Each structure stands twice: as C-alpha cells, then as structure tokens.
C-alpha cells in the first residue's frame, strides 16, 4: 500500500527499506518465535506484512496533524460565537511560528490462518513540527482551508523501546492552500455573546 503524498508515512519516508530495522527488533523476534507450525518463509514474511500495515496506518495526511494542533488553540474558539462571527462569514486567522507536537500509537496484530498469534505490536510515532507561519480560513466555526509557510521538524517511530526510524526534515515550503473539505470543526457554534 503506497503512502499518499503529504502523509505521515511520506514525511518519514517510509518504505520497506526504511523499516529494515523492524525485522531485527525484539518485538518482531518475539512475534516470530510465537508463530508455531509455520515455515521460516512465513515467519519471515511477518516483517513485511507488519511493515506494510504500519505504512498503511501512517497513511494519514500530515495536514490532519496540523489541523488537530490548530484546533487546540484556544483563541480559535471565539469563532464559535455566531453573534460575532455570523454564518457564512469568512474569517482568516494568521499564525506566526509555532510548534505542533504529535504522538500516537498504532497497534498491529498478526493473524495466521485466522488466529491471532503473538502479542500486539505497538509503535510509538512522534512528530514535532515547526511551522513558520500559517493562515487559516474559518467559516461557521470550521477550519476550511489552510496555507502554511515553511515547515521543518523531526519524527521517530519506535517499537518496544527501540527506535526503528528517525527522521529530520529541513525547512520545506508547502506550496498552495490545503482545503479540508467539509471543514474541521473547531467547536460547537453558539449565539451567546456574553459567553465570550
């Protein structure tokens, strides 16, 4: 499964070669040992299977990481007040340099002949992105579009304490504007001006 452009997986440059450390990890070793009754070919293939699944799990757009980070910005919640920011009003919100820290734990499970074998494999994915500037378009308490300046950062993927992939990204310019489709809801719209 190929990673989509602009995904977390692409950020890490994930492919089979990038995850070659995975094969020798303790987690995979335990996993292979726990597979009984299968040939070495099958057991060795678990690494490829897990790597493919990890790439699939990290196929989320990197912009989701940004939007989830921007949502946490408390200052944006004022756009939920429709008395001040009526429906249909387009609001642009500009951010100077900021840092978005992200971590999540995808978990995978190997199934042999329909039966789970071995423990679940948990990965620690961590990202720390520094965005030089960002412009958000907010309509109806939703982030509809975003445009960013240059982005740099680092990230790592670890499994059972051992780092599998470590990535550092030099400042890159993300061209154009990214649309979020139906928008990313900042909060529930309301009409109470006093609440602000």
């Amino acid at each position, binding site marked *: *499964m190929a990673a989509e452009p602009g995904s977390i997986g692409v950020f890490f440059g994930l492919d089979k070669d990038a995850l070659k450390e995975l094969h020798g990890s303790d987690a995979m070793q335990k996993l292979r040992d726990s597979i009984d*009754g*299968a*040939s*070495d*070919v*099958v057991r060795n*293939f*678990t690494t*490829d*299977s*897990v790597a*493919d*699944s990890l790439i*699939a*799990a*990290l196929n*989320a757009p990197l912009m*989701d*990481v940004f939007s*989830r*980070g*921007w949502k*946490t*910005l408390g*200052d944006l919640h*004022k756009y939920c007040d429709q008395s*001040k*920011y*009526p429906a*249909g*009003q*387009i*609001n*642009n*919100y*500009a*951010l*100077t*340099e*900021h*840092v*978005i*820290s*992200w*971590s*999540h*734990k*995808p*978990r*995978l*499970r*190997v*199934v*042999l*002949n*329909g039966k789970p074998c071995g423990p*679940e494999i948990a990965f620690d*994915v961590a990202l720390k992105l*520094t965005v030089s500037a960002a412009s958000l378009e907010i309509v109806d308490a939703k982030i509809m579009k975003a445009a960013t300046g240059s982005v740099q950062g680092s990230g790592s993927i670890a499994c059972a304490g051992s780092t599998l992939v470590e990535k550092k990204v030099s400042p890159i310019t993300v061209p154009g504007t990214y649309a979020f489709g139906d928008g990313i809801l900042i909060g529930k719209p309301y009409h109470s001006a006093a609440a602000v």
Partner: protein
Amino acid sequence: MHGAVGAVVSEETSIGAPGRGGGFAGALAFLIALMISLPAQAQMAGPPMNTQNMRGAMPGQMANPMMMPNNNGMNGNMNGGMGNNTNGMNGNMGGTMMNPSMRMPYMQRMPNQGGGATPPSGQRTTPSFVGLTRSEASALAAQYGLAAAFDGSTSENARVASQAPEAGVLIFRSAMPIRFQMEAQASRPPAQTPAPAGAAPEPQAASPAPPEQAAPLPSAPPAAAAKPAPARTLTTPPATPATPPRNWWILAAIAAGLAGAMWLLFGWRKKPEPAGFNTPPAGGMAQLATQIVSTGLAEATVSLGGAAAPRFELRYVVEHDAHSDQIGISVGGGKDGG
C-alpha cells in the same frame, strides 16, 4: 482503518492436488488387495521342494502340491499305498493316472505297504483291469472271485480298454460277472512298472496265488522300475525348514508392496526440505495477515506551542446584493469586531 491488511502466503506442497482423492483411493485399494492376497499366498507357498519334484515327475497330475508329502511310511513306492487301499485314498490313484505317459495299470495290485487298514474281504471292490492282457485280467479276476467275460479283440496282444463294472465297485458276491472290452495294441506300453517282488496282493493271502501271479509280467522290462515313478517316490520329502525361504521371499515382496503403498500415500507429496524448515500447517497453505488494531490517530496527543507571538487577523464578510456588510482587521489579536 481497522481492516485486514497484509498479504497471504500460500505454499503449495502437493503435486496434482486435484487428483489426490483418486490416488488415495487407488493406493488404498492396492493395500486392501495386498492384505487379501496375503493369506492366499502364504497358503500357496506350500512345500517348495516337494512341488519341484512333483512337477518334474508328474506334470499335470499333482495339481495340489499339498497332497505330496508321503507320510504313511511308504518312503519309496507310492504305488503300494495307493493301490487297493480304497478306504484311504479312495481310488485316487487307481487305474489310469491323469498323465497318460504315467499309466500304472498294476497299481491296484500293489499290496498295501503303508500300513493302512486292509479292507475286509467282504467289502472288496473291483480293481482296475485297464491295460491288462486277457490272461492277466483273467488271473486278476480270479483272485477277486470275479467271472470275467471279454469282448472286442481276441488278439493275444489285446488289452483291456474298459471294464464293466468299473474299478471301485463293491464286489457284493462271489463270481460277480465283469466284462472287459479288449482292444488290440501294437506294442505294450513301455512304462510298465512290475509289482514288487515281495509284495503280495491282498487277495493272495486268502487263496493260493496262481504261478504267474507272483512273477513279474513277462513283457515288463526290469529296468522300468527305475523310471519316472522313482523320480518322485524315491525323493525324500524335504525337511520342513526348507519351506520358510520361499515364504520369506513372499513376505518380503508383500512388505515391499506395503512400503510402496505407504510411499504412494504419504511420501509422494513430500518435498525435501532444508534443515530447520518447518512443515506448514495441514493443507499446505498458511494465511498470514496483519491487522491494524488501531491507527492511534483518534487517541493522538497534540499540543501547539510557541504561537503566542503577535498574530495578524483579517475578517471580511460576504457581500449580499452587492453591499458589503463588514470588514474587520486586527493586529495582535487585541481587537475584535469592526
């Protein structure tokens, strides 16, 4: 995102999988056939040396080799024990044998040397006269108290071709008539075996024998005694241990057949595997897949920092009916509204 992701690895270790059922059935049938044939072959194994001798001496007659062992103590001349002893052999060897070249017309006159019970005189049966000359037949008939009558050829060389009643019929009274059909023959059969000199026919014990009765037949060559009959009768019955080798060969053949069947059943599909290569699960196929239990995105922790710097905010309102409603600009976030 929680879906089965991964790949399936299949290992096909069988050859001709579609025909596997038929091959199995065939091999099973072969096994069953082997099992069935086992006892039959063991029985047919028989005494090997005996049958060899028998085949050499009496082709065609001794079809059942199990009859061969001469265990009644004759140990020499089979004729003696089988002649008139009709209660033991019941006419098996009497008269003409199945092999024409082995005819033993005097067999019935041989004394019972085998120690078998002598039939009581009141239960005697007619002997076989076939092959005898007129005089010989007359003499023998007299011994048995039969009234002989001859039909057919009157030649001196004529011999009895058939008799009525036939051999083995109970002589129920004295002077019972018996008729012989005589046929002239060019020469006497060469394989006539004379009666042993010391063997006196049973009827002689009851009545004095005619002078020609004790003497060997005039036309029978003396050397005939060493001919085909001794080939089998003089052969010492082989010892029992001689039997096993052939049985062993048969058992070995059966074992080889069974091994072959087992190989057909189980060994055919097996491929040589390198050391440490585990056999895959039954069915020869392993399905390996990796499922994404959770992408973790929903539980991701995200924080935003360093955004407290002065910011620039631009607000504008969509125009309705070519009238713009509001436009607001703020710097540093300190001012809301227009």
